[in-house]
């Protein structure tokens, strides 16, 4: 059984017939072909699939596509045009906030949510806000520094 859905991702409408059980992350990756959003676990622990769903942060492996039908999703590909970088992308680059890069899209999306709610977070607040996103390469320290720098660049302090 398939059901029709339409999800707006990064401003473009994607429609299709999907199984009711399909996870949003699979719709984003398979149907829309936007593979910046990753699948790193199967228990909503790792945060690599983090996106914005109707303006709020969501782990797209915990949302069904049918639940997201009619909604608006922003993924890492929608954060900037890929040339003029978002301040968070720029700061992750400047501060060596990534190594293998697999957690990075989710990490940046989670950081964007933090800065929306708290424009000038302390290092401790950044660490707390990112506890739902796992990175195995960086030990988190440079990620924290990157978020700090982005906060400054975006007008926080």
């Amino acid at each position, binding site marked *: 059984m398939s059901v029709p859905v339409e999800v707006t991702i990064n401003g473009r409408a994607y429609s299709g017939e999907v*199984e009711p*059980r*399909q996870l949003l992350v699979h719709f984003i*990756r398979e149907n829309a*072909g*936007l*593979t*910046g*959003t*990753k*699948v*790193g*676990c*199967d*228990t909503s*622990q*790792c945060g*690599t699939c983090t996106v914005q769903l109707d303006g709020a942060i969501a782990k797209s492996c915990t949302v069904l596509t049918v639940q997201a039908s009619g909604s608006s999703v922003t*993924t*890492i*590909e929608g954060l*900037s045009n*890929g040339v003029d*970088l978002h301040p968070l*992308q720029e700061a*992750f*680059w*400047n501060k*060596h906030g*990534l*190594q*293998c*890069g*697999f*957690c*990075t*899209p989710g990490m*940046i999306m989670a950081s964007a949510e933090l800065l929306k709610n708290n424009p000038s977070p302390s*290092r*401790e607040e*950044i*660490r*707390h806000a*990112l*506890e739902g*996103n*796992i*990175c*195995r*390469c*960086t*030990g*988190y*320290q*440079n*990620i*924290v520094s990157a978020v700090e720098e982005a906060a400054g660049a975006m007008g926080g302090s």
Partner: protein
Amino acid sequence: MTTRSFGSGIRRREDPRLITGKAPYTDDIKLPGMVHAAILRSPHAHANIKSIDTSGAASQPGVLAVYTGADLDGVIAGMPCAWLLPGSDLKTPEHPAIAKDRVRYVGDAVAVVVAGTRYEAEDALEHIDVEYETLGVVINPKDAAQAGAPQLHDDVENNIAFTWAVAGGDTDAAFASADVTVSDTITLPRLIANPMEPRSAIASYLAAMNELTLWSTTQNPHICRFLTSVVTGVPEHKIRVIAPEVGGGFGSKIPYYPDEAITAFCAMQLGVPVKWTETRSENYLATTQGRDHVEEVEMAATSDGTITGLRTTVYAGMGAYLSTAAPGVPTILHGLMYSGAYNIANISGTIHGVFNNGTPVDAYRGAGRPEATTLIERLVDLTAAALDMDPAELRRKNLIPKFENGHDVATGIIYDSGDYELTLDACLNNADYAGLRASQAAARAEGRLVGIGMATWVEICGLGPSQVAGAVGFQGGLWESAIVRFHPTGKVNVMVGSSPHGQGEETTFAQIVSEELGVPVEDVEIIHGDTDNTPMGWGTYGSRTTVVSGGAIAFASRKIKEKSKELAAHLLEAAVEDIEYEDGTFFVRGSADQAKTIQDIALMANVAWNMPEGMEPGLEASAFYDPPNFTYPFGTHLAVVEVDPETGRIDLQNYWAVDDCGVQINPMIVEGQVHGGVVQGVGPALWEGVVYDDNGQPLTGTMQDYALPRADLLPDINVGSTTTPSPHHPLGLKGVGEAGTIAATPTVYNAVMDALRPLGVNRVDMPLTPEKVWRAINDAKNGG
């Protein structure tokens, strides 16, 4: 004039594609007509397979094929063990890609379904009926080695895969004449590497040409091609292995896995591209794990604090089968490092590699060296306590004095260079050690459990001289090669056989070329990870890529410089001896306006209108670098913890690292490697460890149950460094990928034990979970 970048922390050149989500990892790749495989895995840790009925699965929607071990028999060879340790009575029982009649761990492959979609393939797995007859299970590696334990392989008595010994000096005499001896039993928990990207493979087979292409999350595409050839029978020159973007590995993507052989088999049978990607839960069952040591260890010393002897008996869990490099990890990479940073004249170790009913164990970041460093550094602390000496001072007394070109240790290896006291002093200064001890005394007076721990360590890296690799049974070489190619416009491609996957070598390699030939770093692009367009190489692991590939790039660049000099002389109508080089420009001595830039030379060499007699066109060189010795990075780390006596919870409050990895190409990347390494080393001290129940069922089967370090659990790490160049490396490099992981486990463990020392607690098994620590505190309070 080129801006010098060698030695400075420039931003990584690989990052733009990663921060924008545009970099394709294996699972992001979709081929026309591609179908999906899902693997049925054993739910039992040890059982005979009585029967398998796949008919129910075969008739499910979308299913193209179902294969079992019987289908692979005679077509796909057993998984090869590629480290055949000599002198160890090594047993290499057959390891079929899909089990035929017996399963030996939860996760052993039993069947594979290929279907149109992944959802369909996974659904169909539930319709395969397997009848099992369960057998006895053994998990603890020491238990597994005892007579009467359940036997995993019929022809491997007491599950002992190998017994390897290291000896130097007269250990028995050292212990007999010692003023003080200490002993401990140290358990290094079984660890899951947890790269954030799960493993994945895509196989595409062109039957008419007998050509196989494999996209794989491997750390070593050339080894993967070699072993794919051995296993599938497709000739090596007809196989192309591509490691696209790889999302971390930490050793777990070195081995050759049943899963990629199965995927290749399915593609070859069906004639369509097949993708297999593991789930995280599957990764926890089927991807090689690390450590799993039970170490019975002793140290001897004289009353003045001279360490005179070290003795070990180690039971190293291998899991159910010998993975690709498994036998070398607890032996060559472990036992040979028993002298640590110290002059220990008398050393003996016996290491038993033992089969147990768990996931196969292989290299995991540090591979053997964290297990060695932990036992040495724990014994040093116990010896200091027994002698009532400060642990920093006992270390200082026994450290090998500064040496610049070779130091023999009792295990028979030769360290390249070291100044261990320099890192000790730097670390103690950075941390204000005296101040920390004073604060600790004040805290203890208030009844608080504050601990200070340290490790002074040395590691064997930059793997390594191929002749040694052969002598110790590694079934490959350990050299690297590089091709440096100048295009007519003066831009450069460098092709390497190693396969960086997060370590930043697209940047550091470009910095080497820039330094050697004076081209801007942005004019150099590094190509890696595809066996069709890169030269042979043995892969990225063992803190070797920057060191060994970097050496090859330096030598290839120097060949280009020599040729450029000759061509410049010809074009400038001067003698070669009169040509000088500086910063990308060749000029006639004494007349700087008579000059050709490297870009001029690249154009003239590529158009070849005016070459000297006998000189070939083009500006390209390749070099093979086989290091004359391993490298031996070192350092001192120090941590402060406080234990909550009410809950057993440990607060890691401060951490100082001082590392010496020789010359640093990019200090920002070095520091990043230390941060990440330290956190991976803290993990097993405090949180990480696989738990099996008595039936061999993993209780830590998901990220929800296996406790990985998270951002809010960690302090910022204070990183410092010293620079002691490797005397035998063309750039003085030593490597830094594993350093933090090797140092942090004993550093943090020692800190917690130091915190608990006033209570009389001197050992708790890692990981030091609150429950275990709380119980130890309460047992001590209740009289032990």
